[in-house]
């Protein structure tokens, strides 16, 4: 089915068209993702369940919950992102679509950006929107919830961008998903620190500006650099 979607347009594209490439890959991946809504729902439920486990494992006491809450929500966001990463390329790789995509006149980098954007819209954005509700369970007050959502809004695209490199490097490998965790989670560490730190800094009265700025810087660096690394990784996997 996915090959049918591919067959429509890129053959007529002008070579080197970056934005049309992004738009085309975004539209295609969004359409495919919305056709399997159950899969998306399961990934969000995973996020909700992981977050709900921590109070059971620690304590229902409100002050302690609000202390660990931002970290728990961020760790769960990392895991949910990790769990959904294979969706970026694996299905297209398995049925040969990825090879056809790579052959299209659009720059592969632009197609990777489009795919990552679609991935973020279907996994990152729902996490951002859910986080304030889950944060209520952790007794976070309104100001902290806003900062938490803002940090996730800036940070989750970076998770998708960095994750694309790992997803492409592990295409078709034995034990791919656990290998992906080993490759990608260490690279996520700065985001986890700045993201959960933003909430912590707000609570302690320092203000979240510094942490959010650093997250923003990470986003810009990732936006410029990762498409090239991810596209190179896709080419390596297709070789």
């Amino acid at each position: 089915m996915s090959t049918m979607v591919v067959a429509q347009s890129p053959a007529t594209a002008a070579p080197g068209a970056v934005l049309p490439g992004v738009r085309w890959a975004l539209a295609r991946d969004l359409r495919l993702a919305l056709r399997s809504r159950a899969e998306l729902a399961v990934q969000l439920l995973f996020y909700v369940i992981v977050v709900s486990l921590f109070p059971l494992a620690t304590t229902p006491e409100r002050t302690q919950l609000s202390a660990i809450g931002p970290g728990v929500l961020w760790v769960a966001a990392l895991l949910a992102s990790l769990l959904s990463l294979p969706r970026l390329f694996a299905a297209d790789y398995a049925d040969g679509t990825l090879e056809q995509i790579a052959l299209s006149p659009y720059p592969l980098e632009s197609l990777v950006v489009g795919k990552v954007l679609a991935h973020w819209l279907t996994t990152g954005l729902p996490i951002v929107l859910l986080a304030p509700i889950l944060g209520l369970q952790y007794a976070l007050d309104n100001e902290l919830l806003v900062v938490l959502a803002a940090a996730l809004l800036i940070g989750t695209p970076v998770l998708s961008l960095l994750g694309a490199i790992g997803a492409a490097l592990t295409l078709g490998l034995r034990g791919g998903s656990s290998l992906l965790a080993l490759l990608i989670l260490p690279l996520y560490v700065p985001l986890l620190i700045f993201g959960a730190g933003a909430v912590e800094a707000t609570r302690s009265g320092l203000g979240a500006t510094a942490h959010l700025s650093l997250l923003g810087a990470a986003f810009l660096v990732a936006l410029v650099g990762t498409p090239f690394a991810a596209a190179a990784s896709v080419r390596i996997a297709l070789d």
Partner: protein
Amino acid sequence: MAFAWSKFSSPASFYPLAGKMIPWFAWGAAILTAIGLWIGFGLAPTDFQQGEAYRIIFIHVPSAWMSMFVYLVMAFWSALYLGFNTRLSAMMAQALAPTGAVMTFIALWTGAFWGRPTWGTYWAWDARMTSELILLFLYFGVIALRAAIEDPRRADRACAVLALVGAINVPIIYYSVKWWNTLHQGASVSATEAPRMASIMLTGMLVMSLAAWFYAIAVVLARVRTIIVERERGAAWLHALPEVAQA
């Protein structure tokens, strides 16, 4: 005539050269280690604050330096491989990863043994320890990725990309952990040594660092030779070697 560097980018000509270099570096490492340990455990005085426990820095500090440096060297060879497509560069990167991981592990292990008597704990979430731990994960990632890919050429290129991405991330990780730590618990625990170090201690540490360098070079060259033998096993020059022809 200019010295032809590119000549040694071919495994066939590098293999015998590495073989000639290994004994020099291996003996150098042995002799330097003997001198360094003699200075560290014999000549250097007992530290008036930390007692005898400080002596582990003669192993700890060189291995910590090497753990970071080896990653940079690995990233350098990876970049060279991606730029020039020289197989030997990828083999060098492959040979460096286990040595780097071992150095990182030694640094963490000796650090814990130093921390117990000095700080009263094996592990603290100190910035340097945490980033060293993450560095160990990065090494494991490169080694595991290599092990998971059967086609050596794809493994070379995938590991090169991963090593480069990791190298860009290492300073970011270090500073993020550092800021995180200062925000959380202040400087209650600091990995910095006593402010002024006796010069004999410094000498011992430098000699041991040199020994670590020599050891790493010898081991990596030996490993790269086995990688060459493994991966060039179809090549005619390899079967013409006396040690291969006999076996």
